[in-house]
């Protein structure tokens, strides 16, 4: 379903019925404004409307009677393809415990997402182990321990060790605890903090994660590309979890991230409780971004 605003734009601009180069230009300008208001990155928006324009003009739209519908379809499909194809898979290891590493900026929802992921995996018949690798935020370990208690999931913690050592030990101990998936909750950090980004690289080296997920706040604005780019460059991301989508943010960061993180958005956070993790749906996201 296409959003109302987008329908209004196209209805008003193409009210004459015929598509011309002039009114396509006008429609494209309005769509660009809608995207920027939705927090789509400036550069990503520019590239996007350029593609739409080429397609619209190139597809002999001007001649067709169903031109307006065709134009709407082009924009929507282009948005969906930018975010798709749909891939909500989690990679499971063959002969050892599967490792999932959560990383991201401060406050994006990593710890909560670790809890949600554990619950999600339990439903699928797995036995997860949560690892409290954030030893710097006050109460971070307690926070994860409470989530673990709520779910009946063990939590590995060693407050006096370094995060890479904690993660390595947890992965080594997983089978002893009869756990087949290890979820690493790391501390929030800035992508420009060399020391902390290096630490993340250390954790990756020691635990060889099967899944490295970037947890991103869906209300992030133009800065989304900067952090996604750096995390991807350093770690090589396997997926993105977009959180707090239960709010009313348009979520344009979703477009930007896919472009620079080179990986699909796999899950979305739809609330604070541990059952609120859903698989990503690009069609619904495209509709939401268009406002």
């Amino acid at each position, binding site marked *: 379903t296409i959003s109302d605003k987008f329908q209004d734009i196209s209805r008003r601009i193409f009210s004459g019925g015929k598509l011309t180069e002039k009114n396509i230009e006008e429609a494209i300008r309005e769509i660009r404004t809608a995207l*920027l208001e939705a927090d789509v*990155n400036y550069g990503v928006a520019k590239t996007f409307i350029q593609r739409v324009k080429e397609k619209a003009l190139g597809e002999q739209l001007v001649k067709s009677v169903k031109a307006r519908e065709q134009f709407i379809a082009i924009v929507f499909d282009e948005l969906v393809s930018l975010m798709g194809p749909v891939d909500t898979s989690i990679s499971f290891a063959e002969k050892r415990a599967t490792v999932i590493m959560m990383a991201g900026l401060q406050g994006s929802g990593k710890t909560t997402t670790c809890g949600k992921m554990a619950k999600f995996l339990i439903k699928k018949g797995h036995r997860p182990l949560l690892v409290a690798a954030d030893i710097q935020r006050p109460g971070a370990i307690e926070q994860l*321990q409470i989530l673990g208690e*709520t779910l009946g999931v063990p939590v590995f913690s060693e407050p006096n060790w370094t995060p890479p050592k904690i993660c390595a030990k947890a992965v080594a101990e997983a089978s002893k605890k009869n756990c087949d998936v290890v979820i690493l909750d790391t501390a929030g950090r800035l992508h420009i903090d060399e020391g902390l980004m290096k630490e993340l690289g250390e954790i990756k080296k020691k635990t060889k994660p099967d899944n490295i997920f970037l947890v991103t706040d869906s*209300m992030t*604005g*133009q800065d989304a590309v900067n952090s996604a780019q750096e995390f991807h460059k350093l770690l090589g991301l396997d997926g993105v979890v977009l959180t707090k989508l239960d709010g009313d943010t348009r979520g344009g960061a979703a477009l930007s991230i896919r472009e620079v993180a080179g990986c699909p958005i796999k899950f979305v956070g739809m609330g604070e409780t541990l059952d609120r993790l859903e698989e990503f749906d690009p069609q619904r996201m495209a509709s939401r971004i268009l406002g």
Partner: protein
Amino acid sequence: FQLGRKIDENFLEELEEKLITADVGVETTLYLISSLRESYKNKEIENKEAILDFLKETLKKKLSKKENTIARASEGPTVILVAGVNGVGKTTSIAKLTYYFSQEGKKVILAASDTFRAAAIEQLEKWAQRLDVDIIKQKMGADPAAVAFDAIEAAVARKADILIVDTAGRLHTQKNLMQELGKISRVMKKKIPDAPHEVLLVLDSTTGQNAIVQAKQFDEVISLTGIFLTKLDGTAKGGVVLAIQNQLETPVKFIGLGEQYEDIEVFDGERFVDALFS
């Protein structure tokens, strides 16, 4: 010299990109660009080279008109209510404010009114220990308004200068939680009619245009007196506060520049504008 000279459109497009990527937003950007065009036409700007400086000066003037000091109670404790959406930095910012006021020699007391999130009380408690201040708390699941009320009574009894109330993160779209916030504010008035003297919305500088509706909705339930803009030590510019200032007149009072309690600064409009364009 021709009358009504035309401005360099390419340069304006560069400026537009700069403003939008700083999260200033389309509406505010178009407004700023069109008024630049006007000023240039009316010869208020010398030449092309002076355009950027003119824009900076205009923005600096707008921001400096704002009062960025904290309101103080005429007698009894000054009560500061801290609110905002999830994960923006409320609890950490309260630690910073505690440090800031302690440096002024003020006696600060904290209220752990986030009774919902896992380990929220523990988190604030650890900050209170590090900063050596009292904290009023109850069990997880307790009524946040009851904790706030208790804290006001304690602040009065212990002759505290400042009481800072931490609240749970909540999305402005959650009607019942927004009502709960309004109740926390009203309950405090039962003990101190002028409380809360200061109502700070904590905004994450990485947040995009959604910050505007956050500010509007929070303002509606608890009447904001200021903004605490966090995580400016990152690469985000926080330009959305310009739009908020335009529409709501809410001034930014403090900024957060890191995860430790010393990482707080009083908002400086001049430096903010310079950083926006850097």
